[in-house]
C-alpha cells in the first residue's frame, strides 16, 4: 500500500543516517522493565562493542540491584530479536551494527525486582 494522494508525494525521510552526528543504536535489557523502554543512543561506529559493558550501560542501568550481579560472560545478545554473538574487541561497525539497529541483552538467572521482571 501507499499513501493515496492528489499529486506526486515524495518527501525525504527525516531520520536517515546523514542527519545524525553518529548512527543510532537502540538497546534494551530484557526482564528489567523498571527501565520503561529500550534506550536510543548515538554511538560512533568505531566504538568497541566492549565499551557498552564498561562505559555505556553502567550509566544507564547501574541503579538496578541486578546490574552488579551480571555475569558478562553469560550474557545473551539479540539483534532484531535473533540470537547474536558480538565480538567485544571489535567496533560496533565491525560487529555489523548499522544506523537504527536494535539490540537487547538477556542476563540469565536475573529476573528483576522480586522476580517481577521489573
Amino acid at each position, binding site marked *: 500500500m501507499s*499513501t493515496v494522494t*492528489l499529486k506526486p508525494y515524495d518527501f525525504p*525521510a527525516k*531520520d536517515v543516517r546523514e542527519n545524525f552526528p553518529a548512527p543510532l543504536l537502540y538497546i534494551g535489557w530484557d526482564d528489567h*522493565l523498571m527501565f*520503561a523502554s529500550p*534506550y536510543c543512543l548515538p554511538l560512533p561506529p568505531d566504538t568497541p562493542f566492549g565499551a557498552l559493558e564498561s562505559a555505556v550501560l553502567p*550509566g*544507564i542501568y547501574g541503579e538496578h540491584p541486578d546490574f552488579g550481579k551480571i555475569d558478562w560472560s553469560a550474557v545473551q545478545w539479540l539483534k532484531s530479536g535473533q540470537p547474536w554473538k558480538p565480538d567485544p574487541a571489535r567496533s560496533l561497525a565491525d560487529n555489523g551494527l548499522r544506523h537504527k539497529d536494535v539490540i537487547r541483552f538477556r542476563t540469565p538467572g536475573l529476573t528483576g525486582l522480586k522476580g517481577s521482571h521489573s
Partner: protein
Amino acid sequence: MDTRVTKKKLGLKERYAAMTRGLAWDTTYQPMDKVFPFDRYEGIKIHDWEKWEDPFRLTMDAYWKYQGEKERKLYAVIEAFAQNNGQLGVADARYINALKIFIQAVTPLEYMAHRGFAHVGRHFTGAGARVAAQMQSVDELRHFQTETHAISHYNKYFNGMHNASHWYDRVWYLAVPKSFFEDAMSGGPFEFLTAVSFSFEYVLTNLLFVPFMSGAAHNGDMSTVTFGFSAQSDESRHMTLGIECIKFMLEQDPANVPIVQRWIDKWFWRGYRLLTIVAMMQDYMLPKRVMSWKEAWEMYAEENGGALFKDLARYGIRLPKGWEIACEGKDHISHQAWNAFYNFAAAAPFHTWVPTDEELNWLSEKYPDSFDQYYRPRLEFYRERQQAGHRYYSKTLPMLCTTCQIPMFFTEPGDPTKICYRETTHGGDKYHFCSDGCKHIFEQEPEKYVQSWLPVHQIYQGHCFKPGVDPTQPGFDPLAAVLDWYDLNVGRDNFDFEGSEDQRNFATWRGDAPQAGSAKKGGAA
C-alpha cells in the same frame, strides 16, 4: 387601497432546509470538481449527497442562542469557583496534575479539531456534511477557549500550566497527541471524519470524558465538572456526526466498505494508543478513585463498542484489527505508562509519585491478574530509593515507536515480561514499532511516516536547543538544553510531587501539617 400581505412563517423543517442546504449552490464559472478537489481522491464513492441525514437539526441562529445560554452558566460557575478559592477544595494537590495533562495534551487537540473541521467543512461537496462539520468546528474552538478559561484559575496557583501551546509543539510526550491529529488532518476529509468523528469521538470518547469529568467531581473540582457538562451536549452531536458519516459512506457504495474498514482499523489503534495516557491518569492521578481503567474499558469499549460493531456487521464491517490485543492491554497499559512518566519525570511539565499504600492496595484489588506480580515491586523499589534520597530518574532518551511516537514500553501480547519489538525496512532504513498495529499502519503509508518528527531523534539531530547553543562545548548538558528550549521551569514544573512547590504551597494554604516523609527532597539526582 393597501393589499394585506400574509406573512408566511416557515415550518421547522423548511426553515432548517433553508438555513442549511438552502445556502449551498452548484458552481457554474468553475467545475464543481475543481472547487471541491478533495472529496473524491480518497476513493470514497458518493452517488447522492441528498441521502445524508443531518445528524442534528440545528441552524446557526439556534446554535448561537443555545451555546450562549450554556456559556453564561459555565462562566458563572467558573467565577464563583474563583471567588471562593475553589482550588483549595480539591482532594489533594496531586490531582492538579491530571488538569496539567488536560491543558497540555487535550486542550490543544480541541484547537486542532477546530482547524480540522473548518477544513473539511469547506471541502465536502454535500452541504449537509459541510454544515455539520462547520458547526463542530465552532464547538471545538469554544471548547479550547472554555477549557483554557477554566484552567487559567488553577494556573494562578500551580506550576505546569502556563505554557501549554508552546509545549504542545515541543515537549516529547506531546508529540503523541500532536502527531495523532496531524496524521488525521493530512488525510482527506472522509478519513478525517472516520478518524476523529467516528473512531475517536464515537468509539472512544467516553473513555476520555468520563474519567476526567467523574474524576473531577470525585476530587472536588467543580469548575472542570461544569465545563464537562457544558461540552457534553456538544459531544453527543459530534458522536452522531461520526456514526452518520460512517453509515452514509457504507450505504452509498459497496466499494467504500474496504476503505472504511482500513481507516477504522488504523484509527481505532491510533486512538487506543493515544488513550494510554488517560488510562494512567485514571489509575494513578486521581486521589479519590472513580473506577479503574480496566473497568472503564470493559464498560465503554468491550460492551458498548462490541455492540456497535455487531450493529455495523450488516454493512460488512468487522471489529477493528487489534481489538483483542487492546482488550488484553487493559490489565497493563496504565501501569506501564505511569512507569514511563516516573522514569522521565525530569523532562515532563507535571509531577509523578509513588502511590500511597492504600492506593497500591486499591490497584492490587482492581488488577488481581497483573499488579502485584509485575508492577507493585518496581513502585515499592522506587519508594525505598526515594526515601534513601535517591529518587530514580532516567537520564537516557527512550526508543520511540515511529507511528504512535510513544516510548516503546508496551509488552508482547500474552507476555507482560517482554517489551514488544517490531521493525520493518523502508528505503534502506530501519523503522521500529511498539506493536503489530503501529507497524501495520506504517506499512500502509510508509511515505507518510518516514517524515515523523520523533522528539528523541530531533534532539539527537540538534534541533531542540535554543539558537546559539553549541552542543560540542565541553560539559554540554543536552537534557538541560532541551528543557531550556521547552521553556520548562526546572525544579517547579518537573520532578517528583514529593518535595514540589505545588505540594508545599497547597499544604500551607490549607494549613495542613506536612506529611511524614514529605520533607524528603524529590529533586534531580
